[in-house]
């Protein structure tokens, strides 16, 4: 796959606008890694990643006339991908209740360890931690979840999140604050349940 610098977006988009199917295919193939990473990071439950990626690309093509070139084309597509994922997450109103019983043995041990140990050692099993983090994030509202995921997991700045989502920076901060408070409550609740 050629990188973004070597890929001729302007030329490719020009050809897509005159209905060149080969150009459309090239564009999809080039942008697929970017889109699938966004989809995988925010995949709503029960939605196959390929279906979601297809929906994002179809939106991209249908809105192509709106692209003015003020931002790089991959950024513009990223925004479509993020908002499409958010729309799907919002459509799934109900979030499954978080219970100890739903955790695997390793996940439960890991959660117990981070809740009880006050030292700074991070858990060893990255994959288990990843699963656990996503289960916890699943308890948040979709918008709050997106912000905390971008901030903490993907280590993006407030400005980058603002550019990616189209939300102003104050709103991003408010959502981050709300998400952290919800996570704190969740940890308190888990701790209480664990003791009982």
């Amino acid at each position: 796959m050629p990188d973004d610098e070597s890929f001729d977006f302007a030329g490719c988009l020009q050809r897509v606008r005159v209905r060149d199917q080969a150009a459309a295919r090239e564009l999809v193939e080039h942008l697929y890694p970017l889109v699938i990473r966004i989809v995988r990071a925010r995949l709503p439950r029960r939605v196959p990643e390929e279906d979601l990626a297809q929906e994002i690309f179809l939106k991209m093509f249908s809105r192509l006339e709106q692209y003015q070139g003020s931002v790089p084309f991959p950024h513009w597509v990223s925004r479509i991908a993020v908002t499409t994922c958010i729309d799907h997450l919002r459509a799934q109103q109900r979030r499954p209740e978080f219970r100890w019983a739903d955790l695997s043995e390793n996940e439960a041990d890991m959660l117990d360890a981070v809740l009880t140990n006050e030292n700074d050692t991070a858990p060893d099993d990255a994959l288990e931690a990843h699963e656990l983090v996503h289960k916890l994030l699943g308890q948040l509202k979709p918008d709050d979840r997106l912000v905390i995921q971008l901030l903490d997991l993907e280590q993006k700045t407030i400005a980058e999140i603002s550019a990616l989502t189209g939300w102003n920076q104050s709103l991003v901060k408010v959502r981050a604050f709300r998400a952290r408070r919800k996570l704190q409550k969740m940890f308190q609740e888990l701790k209480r349940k664990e003791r009982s």
Partner: protein
Amino acid sequence: MKPQVQDSAWQKLVAAARRAPDERATTAPYGFATRVAALALAAERRPFGSLFERFSWRALGVAALLAIGSVAADYASLSKSADDDGVFDETAVTSVFDVAGT
């Protein structure tokens, strides 16, 4: 448990989660790009394909205009026949009363 400790628990989990490798392939599955490109270009063509739909709406509008026009054009005779109906009804009613009176 203090909020700082909870936040620290979250940060520890997140730090570990960031180290999780994602080894899944990121290249488009075979046929994906071809299918999406074909669907996208077909969807763009659809406005021209929906000519029948557009003509149907136009035909409905024309039919509605014709109906209104014909009612307006024939309004005089319609109102006259309505008046005739009124007279007829009146006559019928009075004759019933006449019969009842006799």
